[in-house]
């Protein structure tokens, strides 16, 4: 006979505001098999958990039902408490009377009635719970980091410094990401290169880090502690081991007029190139689309001049497989472009700003390259169209961001600060120039941030105009900026020499495709979703995968570095054990009735179903049936629902339990 304990939580007022918790407790006490029932204000707190533990001991409880929030929130908390009181944790279940009841209803009487029924269902279900042994799986103590920007670099260094092997995969020919493109960084104006490049070198020289640049993730198999990752190493056409990085191939390459993406297409590069002089690794790559050798079969100058013979035109993409136990995703961001967008895209461009056709209307990253000492102008602020020094520069904030009508409603978070920085850099370099900023709000919370923004106005003479810009058009060699000053209530027209747009921060192109390979979730903008916005901000809902940097949402460098170290700490915690405990909520096949149709195998999204041969004592094959690998099974239950002969059961969610719940209604 079951002796069930029922614990009703008030959740402060979250539940008790709408549900009469005392009545639920008293009604539950009358239900068959219930030995004890009570309510408490915060069941998840220390006194609440102690209450549960004490009741288990005092009333000799065999099962526990906690009626509170979603099991996603606190199932683990209460199962641990039950375990500490000597109960098998899987004999504790949660009745969700918050998300499924009090939060979604207004009528107290009806909500109370519903809460009583939900508790009743869980009581019937828990009676049929089995004692489940914890499953353990081995942990491969190697981490994969996807993305070699500041987030990936920081995370990789932290994990590697802890003594674990790290594999870092970067899509571009060099690590460094967007931070390597920046000139100086807020709020201290230290040069980005000076704080970034040493970290890049540390990473390349680290004995525990294997670096794959110019590589992409092809496929991800496995599960927490045991991933198999297939990496496509794209053909570089240069042998990484032979190349000494002397750069003579670059000097001699006759194709010199290819827009350099690293310099936002302002500067030019050769067909064989390193994206920037401080690149890591310092090994060039041949851009096959623009290389004369690949286009016409004639040239090969680089091959002729290369001393160590590192140029290899016949190189092909290769696939390598790396076993890892954890994955940190740090794929970063790209900037919104104002050009006309493809049909069907929810994001619209800016026709009123000329759809990107006015040459001296540039984005913030392009301004960074103009201001950077290593940029195409050597750090001089010169406008792209005619190379003249602009004397009137208009900065426009919130371009794309915070505008639902353009398809993006979120704030990009970094633009207020970098625009303030741009006005300072401009003022430092063009003393007789004037910077204007059109802004909606100055969102500058952060350590020393507000002071920095104030400085741009008070000491660096930037003129801030609160209002938005309706139109930009070219008039002679000027750009007419038509805007409004809502503080004064007048229309403003400025004839600018250069216009800099603080365009929205978006996830990298293809972020959704990578998420699908990894099996992690993402929002409608393709930013990756964390498991819990507040309490699990660096973990994905998919176990063993962690997030760092702007791929999860717009972030500045300090936040990115913090999150990267946090993700690294999570990985280290995972690697601190040799075996990993897993919830035993997995599917089991009844061998006697399984006919081996493998419908379950077809529907399993995790590849957990294997084929198992049943043989008699003489070794004759009797039949081939399904077998669920408990290490791989995610407990989703799809196989259970699919099996035509009802031969698969998910522990904790058996047909018998579901039917018992329905009958309790």
């Amino acid at each position, binding site marked *: 006979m079951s002796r069930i304990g029922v614990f009703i939580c008030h959740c402060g007022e979250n539940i008790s505001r709408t549900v009469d918790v005392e009545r639920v407790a008293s009604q539950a006490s009358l239900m068959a098999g219930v030995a004890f029932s009570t309510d408490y204000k915060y069941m998840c707190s220390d006194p609440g958990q102690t209450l549960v533990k004490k009741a288990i001991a005092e009333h000799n409880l065999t099962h526990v039902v906690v009626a509170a929030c979603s099991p996603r929130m606190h199932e683990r908390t209460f199962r641990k408490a039950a375990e500490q009181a000597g109960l098998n944790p899987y004999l504790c279940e949660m009745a969700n009377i918050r998300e499924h009841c009090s939060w979604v209803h207004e009528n107290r009487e009806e909500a109370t009635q519903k809460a009583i029924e939900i508790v009743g269902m869980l009581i019937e279900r828990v009676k049929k719970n089995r004692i489940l042994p914890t499953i353990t799986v081995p942990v491969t103590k190697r981490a994969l980091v996807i993305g070699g920007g500041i987030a990936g670099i920081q995370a990789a260094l932290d994990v590697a410094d802890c003594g674990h092997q790290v594999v870092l995969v970067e899509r571009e020919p060099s690590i460094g990401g967007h931070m390597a493109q920046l000139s100086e960084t807020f709020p201290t104006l230290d040069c980005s290169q000076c704080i970034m490049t040493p970290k890049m070198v540390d990473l390349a020289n680290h004995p525990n880090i294997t670096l794959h640049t110019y590589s992409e993730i092809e496929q991800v198999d496995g599960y927490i502690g045991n991933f198999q990752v297939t990496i496509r190493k794209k053909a570089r056409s240069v042998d990484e081991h032979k190349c000494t990085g002397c750069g003579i191939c670059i000097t001699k390459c006759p194709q010199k007029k290819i827009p350099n993406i690293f310099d936002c297409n302002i500067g030019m590069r050769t067909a064989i190139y390193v994206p920037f002089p401080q690149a890591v690794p310092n090994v060039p790559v041949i851009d096959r689309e623009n290389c004369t050798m690949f286009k016409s079969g004639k040239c090969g100058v680089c091959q002729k001049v290369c001393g160590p013979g590192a140029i290899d035109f016949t190189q092909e993409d290769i696939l390598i497989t790396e076993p890892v136990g954890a994955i940190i995703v740090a794929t970063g961001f790209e900037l919104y472009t104002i050009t006309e967008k493809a049909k069907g895209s929810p994001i619209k461009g800016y*026709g009123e700003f000329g759809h990107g056709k006015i040459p001296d209307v540039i984005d913030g990253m392009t301004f960074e390259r103009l201001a950077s000492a290593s940029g195409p102008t050597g750090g001089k602020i010169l406008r792209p169209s005619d190379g003249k020094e602009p004397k009137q520069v208009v900065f426009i904030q919130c371009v794309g961001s915070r505008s639902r*009508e353009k398809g993006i409603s979120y704030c990009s978070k970094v633009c207020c600060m970098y625009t303030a920085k741009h006005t300072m850099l401009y003022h430092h370099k063009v003393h007789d120039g004037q910077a204007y900023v059109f802004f909606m709000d100055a969102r500058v919370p952060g350590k020393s941030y507000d002071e920095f923004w104030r400085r741009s106005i008070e000491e660096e003479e930037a003129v801030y105009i609160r209002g938005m810009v309706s139109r930009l058009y070219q008039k002679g060699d000027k750009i007419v900026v038509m805007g409004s000053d809502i503080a004064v209530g007048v229309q403003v027209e400025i004839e600018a020499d250069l216009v800099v747009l603080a365009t929205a921060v978006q996830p990298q192109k293809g972020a959704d495709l990578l998420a699908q390979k990894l099996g992690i979730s993402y929002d409608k903008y393709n930013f990756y979703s964390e498991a819990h916005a507040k309490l699990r901000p660096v973990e994905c809902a998919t176990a063993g995968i962690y997030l760092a940097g702007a791929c999860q949402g717009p972030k500045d460098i300090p936040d990115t570095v913090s999150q990267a170290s946090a993700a690294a700490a999570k990985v280290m915690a995972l690697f601190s054990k040799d075996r990993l405990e897993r919830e035993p909520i997995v599917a089991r096949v009844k061998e006697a009735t399984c006919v081996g149709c493998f419908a379950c195998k077809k529907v399993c999204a995790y590849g957990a179903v294997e084929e198992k041969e049943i043989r008699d004592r003489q070794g004759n094959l009797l039949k081939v049936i399904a077998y669920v690998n408990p290490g791989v099974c995610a407990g989703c239950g799809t196989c259970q629902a699919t099996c035509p002969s009802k031969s698969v059961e998910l522990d904790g969610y058996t047909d018998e339990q579901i039917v018992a719940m329905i009958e309790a209604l």
Partner: protein
Amino acid sequence: MSNLKYSYYPGCSLHASATEYDISTREVCTALGIELQEIPDWICCGATPAHNVDELLSLSLSAKNLELAEQVPGDMAVSCASCFSRLKFTQHILGKSETKLKLVEKAIDGPVHLERRVKHLLEILARDYGLDKLAADVRKPLSDITVACYYGCLLTRPTDVPNLDCTEAPTIMESIVETVGGTTVPWTHRLECCGANFTLSRPPVVQQLSNAVLESAKNAGADCIVVACPLCHGNLDIRQKEIESIYGSSYGLPIFYITQLVGLALGIPPERLGLDSLCVSPQNLLKEKKLIQGA
């Protein structure tokens, strides 16, 4: 030729100051085999004054017209940018607000019909009839004529309501003009306001804004401006001489309705397109470009 049939809503301007727009609209549609049946007893849409003063009145006037349109089959064809905007706005607002819908039903003492598709003449020409077919109907291509297509503020704005074309970078008018052989110019003020109905209450505002439009078109090298709105036409055409004298400039830019230019290209005799109603005479330009006969 086509089987297109529309319930036609001309609006007050097309029966008064912009009769040439009405005449040329009907001529072009007849020439293309597009049947326009005028909605019986249609009333004023209230234009700008009504919706500035009384939203219920404004919505009710357009709702009444939508109800009257039920008597005539086919999508609703509208030439005037303002009537078009008011009808689309009414459908948009009443489609979203049950409360306002109830008030309007009470006001017009009848059901509100929001399903009818309201189409501007530009969409009818470019999409329903189609540019390919239109190209085949051209008898006198508008070669050598350089046109500044002027949308003004109403045709494409705001973002979600008229849904005629891209709000800030539309191309529909250019596509029609190019289809009938004209050359279009990129220019800066094609979506700026002409001053609209301030023409009566605050003429200096209109003079200033319309001057900027004329100046921009002239600088872009246009021979003329083409419009699809009676109010824009009034401000740019009727006030052009006065603006020239105030700003000491000389534009001499004929302002055509889109239907007048398309009509010329289709070979409709000029005298049937109301060209003589234009204040800035197009005679010299059209003669020069050999689009009309002349000494």
